[in-house]
């Protein structure tokens, strides 16, 4: 046995220095139960202290930017689903709005409010996953299993509206593919009625929980200055104390009509990020309530608005209803033209960004007037801020590195495009 181990012919070859080395090299990932996605970090650790970490990314790179150069605009929506798959409706809406900006479309208020509802619901879903996973990584599984039921309820609302759950492909250029059914409003109201109680319970389980606080406070901090230099956006930047929110700074989809607060933190550690997300969930709930009120008001004043789910000017981008396609010549022509990607988009350069689940999701679109983009670049927030990870975890404990990773809300799909 010992002969076998000391045999120089053995296939594992270690470098000479490795025997003298006082530290340990730890390969964390690419698939590891604590990393929630395909992340690899090669860490140099001294006991439990992380001395150095080198992240390797790109394991699920799918060349979306290249694919987008051969796809008509409506076929790019499913690609955006697969960026941040925890809040794909926000990505979808951001992409529709980019094209609407290129076309110069102005949507009716009802559609914009409906979009706000969808986006805020997916923000809640995104933050619920992230925050409950922080708890899981600190060893508390109960809150996670509890709130996941409510993410499920959000997905049921999406399912009622667009037919799919995770990768939604929701909405179209100029509005929605079909009107919201009464059932979707019932489900939404049901969610709004039951969710706050659950959220309160979630908060009371964790917010002032001594064990949770001791684990999170001071772990993986980043100063506001460094966060800005690293291009942080979204809850991670706000946790560091900078109140930058795209919804307010470059208001889109009528967010300026809503009254909401931007929660901010102070030191940008795991606990701050957790608290900022919790605060945002409450603001999202309030925004959805306001949106429902506004829609109700519009429908009371103008009953014909009830059937408005896409902008009239966008009908050249809107696939007509199936029964019209079979019975009307015009509808058949438009159906064919849209499906074949025959719709002209003007030449131009657009940058549009929305406040995604984990930061500013930007779309930089260069159109040369053809059926596909000449170039489409996605500004993926977590790709930009994940590079700060080594700086945030070095000289901390390995267990802090794990919760820092989950608190950053890095989504592998978005990271690797």
């Amino acid at each position, binding site marked *: 046995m010992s002969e076998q181990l000391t045999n120089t012919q053995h296939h594992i070859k270690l470098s000479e220095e490795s025997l003298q080395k006082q530290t340990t090299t730890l390969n964390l990932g690419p698939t590891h139960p604590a990393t929630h996605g395909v992340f690899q970090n090669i860490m140099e650790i001294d006991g439990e202290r992380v001395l150095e970490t080198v992240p390797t990314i790109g394991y699920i790179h799918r060349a979306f930017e*290249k694919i987008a150069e051969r796809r008509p605009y409506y076929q790019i929506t499913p690609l955006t689903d697969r960026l941040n798959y925890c809040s794909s409706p926000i990505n979808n809406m951001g992409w529709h709005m980019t094209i609407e900006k290129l076309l110069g479309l102005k949507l009716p208020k009802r559609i914009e409010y409906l979009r706000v509802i969808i986006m805020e619901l997916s923000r809640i879903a995104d933050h619920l996953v992230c925050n409950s996973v922080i708890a899981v990584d600190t060893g508390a599984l109960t809150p996670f299993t509890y709130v996941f039921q409510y993410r499920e309820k959000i997905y049921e609302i999406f399912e009622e509206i667009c037919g799919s759950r995770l990768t939604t492909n929701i909405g179209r250029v100029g509005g929605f593919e079909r009107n919201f059914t009464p059932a979707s409003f019932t489900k939404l109201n049901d969610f709004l009625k039951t969710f706050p109680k659950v959220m309160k319970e979630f908060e009371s389980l964790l917010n002032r929980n001594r064990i949770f606080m001791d684990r999170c406070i001071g772990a993986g901090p980043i100063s506001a200055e460094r966060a*800005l230099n690293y291009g942080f956006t979204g809850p991670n930047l706000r946790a560091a104390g900078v109140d930058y929110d795209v919804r307010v700074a470059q208001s889109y989809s009528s967010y300026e009509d809503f009254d909401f607060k931007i929660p901010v933190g102070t030191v940008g550690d795991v606990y701050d990020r957790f608290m900022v997300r919790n605060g945002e969930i409450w603001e999202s709930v309030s925004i959805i309530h306001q949106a429902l009120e506004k829609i109700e008001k519009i429908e009371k004043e103008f009953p014909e608005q009830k059937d408005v789910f896409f902008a009239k000017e966008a009908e050249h981008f809107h696939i007509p209803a199936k029964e019209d396609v079979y019975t009307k010549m015009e509808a058949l022509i438009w159906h064919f033209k849209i499906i074949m990607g025959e719709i002209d988009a003007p030449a*131009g350069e657009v*940058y549009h960004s929305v406040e995604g689940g984990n930061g500013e999701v930007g779309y930089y679109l260069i159109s040369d007037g053809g059926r596909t983009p000449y170039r489409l670049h996605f500004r993926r927030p977590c790709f*930009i801020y*994940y*590079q700060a990870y080594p700086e945030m975890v070095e000289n901390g404990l390995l267990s802090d590195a794990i919760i820092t990773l989950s608190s950053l809300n890095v989504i592998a799909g978005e990271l690797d*495009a």
Partner: protein
Amino acid sequence: MALTNDIVKQKLTDKFGEQLTDWEVPYGIMAFRAPAEMNLKVMQFLYDDEELRFRFMTDLTAVHYPDRKGEELCVVYHMHNLTDNIRLRFKIYVPVEKPDVYTASKLFSAANWMERETYDFFGINFIGHPNLIRILNVDEMDYFPMRKEYPMEDPTRRDKDDEMFGR
């Protein structure tokens, strides 16, 4: 007084004169073109100036225009002044044979990976970058896939070309 596109343009022309060209404001974001070797000077000025304060790098990417002889590759920077909430885009063009651009990673830590990504996909050589290696693609790859000469699908396949759609 709030900072506007016109003031930004005025300050930049005062500083750099005729070297900045192609001023336009497509869809609300002011854009201009700078000479390739001036990118850092422009960025540093935008960063340091007490009034301009473009201290946030939103995005960095590249575009390949194979038909523009001598300036095939275009590097696009999106900057953001968070205090006055104003965005700006500027571009530099470099020839594909010698795609040398000075790195912005000393000024913005955020540029580090974005430049690696741009190198990975377009082959832009960022001079002075601390670690210019591939980031999303495999290390063994010996070409830059986002350049237009690499078609996404089988190049013999014609049914998805624009001319099949009346163009």
